[in-house]
């Protein structure tokens, strides 16, 4: 799978600048519009300014979008249109090599985009603690979860337009109800329980705690749930893609 990752990184070295600029602008726009615009009407949340509250969440959400887009549109194009994955399989690689190459690449991208946002909010003066450095290794975990989810969906669909369903039905609700924009204790009780299955919620909680320097054992369950997602889903994309790639 590292041989496959080598191919992806070669492509990434060519496109990272244009890719990053695009992906970097959007969270910054949100942060400015909501943090400084909407934030003017919000007194503070849990003792911090609204801009300070939402900024760390964008590290997590950028990571989610990067991983999600790579393993939906990116993987689907390589699978269905470019046949890049088939030609890899004619080389001495297995389906697992190819699939985990996709997942690792999405994880690397997730890490990269999250890191860029972390750097940006640090420049805006919104990073309070050196603990935030720990976000870097942490980003790999949700990055992998979103890659596994997205690639499982991609292994399932036959038409590129169906990816819209994934974005609308899964990614957007995960984004809105992740605790980036408002504390989730304002939700009814069943809503507060439901967010525990949302991987982005855990990623946001950990990112925010590290940025603010609130490091306690309360973070461990969040990490555990994300690790649980990896364990539960780890086998699924390989199985689905085996059906798609081999006949």
């Amino acid at each position, binding site marked *: 799978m590292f*041989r*496959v990752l*080598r*191919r992806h990184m*070669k*492509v990434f070295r*060519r*496109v990272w600048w244009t890719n990053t600029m695009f992906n970097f602008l959007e969270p910054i726009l949100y942060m400015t519009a909501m943090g400084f615009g909407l934030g003017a009407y919000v007194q503070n949340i849990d003792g911090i300014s609204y801009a300070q509250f939402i900024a760390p969440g964008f590290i997590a959400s950028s990571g989610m979008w990067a991983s999600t887009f790579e393993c939906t549109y990116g993987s689907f194009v390589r699978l269905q249109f*470019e*046949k*890049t994955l*088939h*030609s*890899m*399989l*004619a*080389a*001495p*690689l*297995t389906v697992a090599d190819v699939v985990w190459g996709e997942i690792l690449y999405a994880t690397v991208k997730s890490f990269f985009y999250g890191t860029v946002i972390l750097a940006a909010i640090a420049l805006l003066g919104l990073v309070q603690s050196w603990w935030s450095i720990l976000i870097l290794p942490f980003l790999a975990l949700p990055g992998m979860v979103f890659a596994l989810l997205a690639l499982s969906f991609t292994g399932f669909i036959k038409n590129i337009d169906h990816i819209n369903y994934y974005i609308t039905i899964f990614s957007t609700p995960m984004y809105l109800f992740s605790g980036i924009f408002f504390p989730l204790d304002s939700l009814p009780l069943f809503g507060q329980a439901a967010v525990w299955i949302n991987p982005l919620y855990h990623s946001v909680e950990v990112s925010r705690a590290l940025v603010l320097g609130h490091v306690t054992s309360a973070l461990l369950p969040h990490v555990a749930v994300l690790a649980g997602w990896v364990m539960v889903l780890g086998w699924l994309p390989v199985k689905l893609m085996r059906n798609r*790639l*081999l*006949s």
Partner: protein
Amino acid sequence: MSIVVQARNLMKYYGGFQAVKGISFEINKGECFGFLGHNGAGKSTTMRMIYGLSTVQQGSLTVLGEQITLTPPRIKARMGVVPQEDSLDPDLTVLENLEVYGGFFSLSARESRQRGQAWLNFMGLEDRGDVRVDSLSGGNQRRVVIARALINHPEIVVLDEPTTGLDPQGRRLVWQKLRQLKEQGVTLILTTHYMEEAAQLCDRLVVMNDGMILAEGHPEELVQQHVLPYCIEVRLPMELIPEDLTEKVQASGGMVERMADGLFIYTEEGQTVWQKLPEWGLTQRACYLRTSHLEDVFLKLTGRREE
């Protein structure tokens, strides 16, 4: 001579559809072995089973001495594959494509670039290494795919319709390169629906139709076995052909085949029969005399089945 690929009663089902219906063949080291057939005859399915994109369901397939269900990486490492569709990586340049592909065979970047450049030179593309794949013509892309298949110095190269979509010059260039490879001792396995390609390249071939092998042999042997040496094509609509023609041809020792909406007279003695055509009610202007070739065998074997 040692056998590099052996199939025994090989079958493949897709749901209820049987794509390959129990075929057997042997491919010797160093030869060029062809699968000739229509689209959908089962050629590509057989190829995919050999190079590891399809599993063997029934029967046995042995590749490089190992019986396989799904060709494992250690066998694929000794093989080169030119798939039917040009699956070059459009995000990379030509040489990067080769470099990355070499990486899949655990070659270092430097080694794969060197080998890649050498194979590009071999394919006559020495100055195209730095261009993007999509700026190449179809023929040149095909040549890059062949160069890519050679990056690991394979013992066997599988080519699934290597010249489909190429212009005549491009096709001849590819043939020339494949012959050179064979000279170097590489075993070539190819599928094609071009008779000329099969006749030009193959030491032995099988004619496939509807998932079955109908005939096997050297192209010239097949012509000798299945049709008479001369062919007269009668280029007339069926209603203008005299009704008693078949009897007259047979009386003279020839054979008549109706296939693909045309009528063909096969005979031992081309000139003699040619002279008799006016007598039989056919004008020579509407007919064409030539020696028989592989296409006649192919039409005879596969054409009848569709009637």
